[in-house]
């Protein structure tokens, strides 16, 4: 920011993997006391660059200078010794230990009789205090904390060694707005203390809220480095995807203009559907060909409600009528038999099966629905797979490739294919576009719109309110595990409308409690 020399200077970095050039002559600079965002689509090379800087990958060509000295990292420990600390997207802490133990693991204060726990806890408290987190109880087991707090503990831990560089790799992907605000307070505090911060995120709002400078990568190549205030959003996105993104924009307007009038009997009707501790009793109606958006912050109960509809969790109250008939959906098998499908927000652990091929992943649900003793013939499988790989534009369209080798967006498309192959009347999509690149996002949104046009009822959940507004006919706004409001979508409804609903409610509540 100032005239100070960069703390990290990477020039001409290239890394190749068998068959791919992951990074091609990329430059990157990081100055003390700045927040620098690394932007690019999935596969642009962001994580490869970070792994080069943290010593996970060895570079083939190029030079890394840290504080003016050339470094060759042989492993993560080398990078840490050079003053580079990293906090990853998935919280990498030990949930079986307490906050204090996690913060100080490997840096415990030792005395003549081994670890001096009193001094160790004191040191941990000091670190938390520098981040303004002194309210945390050091002895509390990590497992009892929310993900957001765990993320802050992870940052505290990274700061124990007093690093000069802090890398935050998508730390916000599972935080709600308040939690992000808390995190940003901490980040600003660190920046003001002179720490150089490298920040990676998919959320544009956050980029503009926190960063001073942006480096854009595309397809492993270096696009440019820009001060944030000189780069507007549209330009940034077009630099990231390398083309105009008008297709994305046009989609929403079309859908919003066609207003859907529910006719006749609802496909699904739920009364008092709920589960203790995760979802308050909720009423719900859903018609054929309708897209119902569930909006709300993370932890608002939208995922929990979706899981109840699918029987992924067992409801303990309420009644569900399906096509006018009282129905008991107590597990996923029953749901599939009633032509309900559910795509989980947790693509990695609850969606794809990494070691199975694209074909096997795609036919799994259909096969499970038919029962194992009525196998799909190879011919039927191939027909299904060909149909959905083409329809959803999965790349590479190789059915025998293990799905783990596909990008996130293409994995998501295969999963969508898995559910479509069961020919559902009701499709529940929980965050189908999270963490995938802009192109795949547009394709998935188009697929959802097409499904609704064909008469499928869709429940659509997303953290991106714009996306919910763009796609839904009706929107249920949720907070604190219950339904706040139900909005008929139309030209007058925008993301701000939903934010206002959530915020108003919050104000009321605070008023009540005081």
């Amino acid at each position, binding site marked *: 920011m100032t005239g100070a020399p960069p703390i990290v200077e990477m020039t001409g970095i290239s890394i190749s993997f068998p068959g791919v050039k992951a990074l091609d002559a990329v430059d990157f600079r990081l100055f003390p006391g700045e927040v620098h965002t690394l932007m690019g689509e999935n596969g642009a090379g962001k994580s490869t660059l970070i792994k080069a800087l943290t010593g996970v990958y060895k570079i083939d060509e190029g030079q890394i200078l840290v504080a003016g000295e050339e470094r060759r990292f042989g492993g993560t420990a080398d990078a840490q010794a050079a003053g580079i600390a990293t906090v990853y997207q998935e919280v990498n802490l030990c949930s079986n230990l307490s906050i204090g133990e996690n913060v100080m693991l490997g840096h415990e204060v030792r005395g003549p009789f081994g670890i001096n726990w009193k001094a160790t806890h004191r040191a941990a408290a000091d670190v938390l205090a520098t981040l303004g987190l002194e309210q945390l109880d050091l002895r509390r087991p990590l497992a009892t904390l929310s993900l957001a707090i765990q993320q802050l503990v992870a940052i505290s831990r990274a700061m124990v060694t007093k690093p000069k560089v802090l890398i935050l790799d998508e730390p916000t992907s599972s935080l709600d707005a308040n939690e992000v605000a808390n995190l940003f307070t901490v980040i600003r505090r660190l920046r003001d203390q002179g720490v150089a911060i490298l920040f990676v995120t998919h959320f544009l709002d956050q980029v503009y809220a926190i960063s001073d400078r942006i480096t854009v990568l595309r397809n492993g190549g270096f696009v440019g480095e820009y001060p944030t205030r000189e780069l507007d959003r549209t330009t940034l996105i077009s630099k990231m995807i390398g083309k105009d993104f008008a297709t994305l924009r046009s989609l929403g307007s079309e859908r919003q203009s066609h207003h859907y009038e529910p006719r006749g009997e609802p496909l699904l009707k739920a009364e008092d559907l709920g589960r203790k501790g995760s979802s308050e009793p909720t009423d719900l109606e859903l018609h054929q060909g309708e897209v119902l958006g569930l909006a709300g912050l993370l932890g608002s109960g939208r995922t929990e409600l979706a899981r109840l509809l699918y029987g*992924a969790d067992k409801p303990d109250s309420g009644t569900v009528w399906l096509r006018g008939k009282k129905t008991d959906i107590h597990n*996923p098998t029953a749901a*599939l038999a009633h032509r309900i499908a559910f795509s989980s927000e947790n693509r990695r652990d*609850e969606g794809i099966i990494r*070691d*199975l091929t694209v074909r*096997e992943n795609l036919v799994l*649900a259909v096969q499970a629905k038919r029962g194992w003793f*009525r*196998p799909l013939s190879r011919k039927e499988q191939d027909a299904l797979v060909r149909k959905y790989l083409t329809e959803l534009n999965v790349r590479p369209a190789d059915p025998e490739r293990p799905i783990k080798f596909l990008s996130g967006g293409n994995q998501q498309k295969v999963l969508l294919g898995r559910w479509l192959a069961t020919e559902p009347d009701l499709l529940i999509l929980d965050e189908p576009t999270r963490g995938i690149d802009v192109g795949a996002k547009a394709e998935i949104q188009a697929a959802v719109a097409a499904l609704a046009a064909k008469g499928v009822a869709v429940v659509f959940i997303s953290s991106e309110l714009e996306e919910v507004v763009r796609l839904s006919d009706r929107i249920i706004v949720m907070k604190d595990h219950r339904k706040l409001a139900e909005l008929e979508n139309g030209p007058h409804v925008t993301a701000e409308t939903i934010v206002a609903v959530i915020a108003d409610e919050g104000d009321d509540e605070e008023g009540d409690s005081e």
Partner: protein
Amino acid sequence: MTDVASRLAARRGAIVRNQAFWGVIAIVLLLAVNVVADPGYLSIGYNSGHLSGNLIDILRASAPILMIAVGMCLVVATGGIDLSVGSIMVVAGAVSMELLSGMDGTTGDAALTLAIALGIATVLGAVNGVLVSVVGLQPFISTLVMMLAGRGIAKVITGGQNTTADNDSFAWLANGYVLGVPVVFLLAIVIVVLVALLVRRSALGLMLEAIGMDSRASRLAGVKRRSLQLTVYSVSGLLAGIAGVFATASVMTVDVSRTGYQLELDAILAVVIGGTSLAGGKFSIGGAVIGGLLIATLDKTVVFLGVPAAATPAFKAIVIVVLCLLQSERVRSLFRHRRALRAQSQKEAVAA
């Protein structure tokens, strides 16, 4: 031309990477060692209507191991393990001997006994299945409990004695011949083929692999994890029961402390030799069969060479270590590295 060559090389690579291939190599090597020790080792005789010879002995001895190895293979595919197969073997043997010793020795008695023994074995397997799938205990510990309890149950059944019985039909299962080949081996092969067909011709194999790879994702995809786990552990129990019948019928005696003792380890070993990872997922029944044959060959070879049978474990250890090393990334990349170096030096030689 180069295309064909590279495709051939890729094919060869796939074979070499296939762990069962190394199992076959190991069997051949062991047989070769025996031939060196006795050139007539492989000769097969024919007298009074049946084949005889060392190879036939190996086939006969492999039957119980094949049974439990196939059961274990299915359990391992779901990410589980079944430590109780040896104990279920002895329970089935104890039930059989105890029942037969009180009967007349007719074929009907044998059939009834067989049904009861296998029924009890299946129930014990199902108990494992319930503990794993319904109660949600780790397979390791559930089947460990059954392993401890099973041998105790067998001892209780026979009152701690080694019970002996007489029944020609029952003994025929283990000692008889059909077309000159031991019945027990034929039965084992028929059962293995049936299981393999059942698993691979239906979608059962895919379902088991899906559970083993990611049980949460497969549940949401509608795979019925509980009933499949219950099935797999029950089948493993049933197959262990058959193995127990094979093992006791050959001598018509159950030795409560030795029948099936530590055979669960042989079964696990056979599965691993066959290239199935203990972490679950992709499995190979054919591989498990090769693994079972290798273990039977190894057991017989050690005895044939005059090494005390008690020392057999040391040779099994060597087999495990060698196979695990061949499978490990570190050793593989070492090989790759060396091959690359050689290719490079060849190229340089050509250039020069």
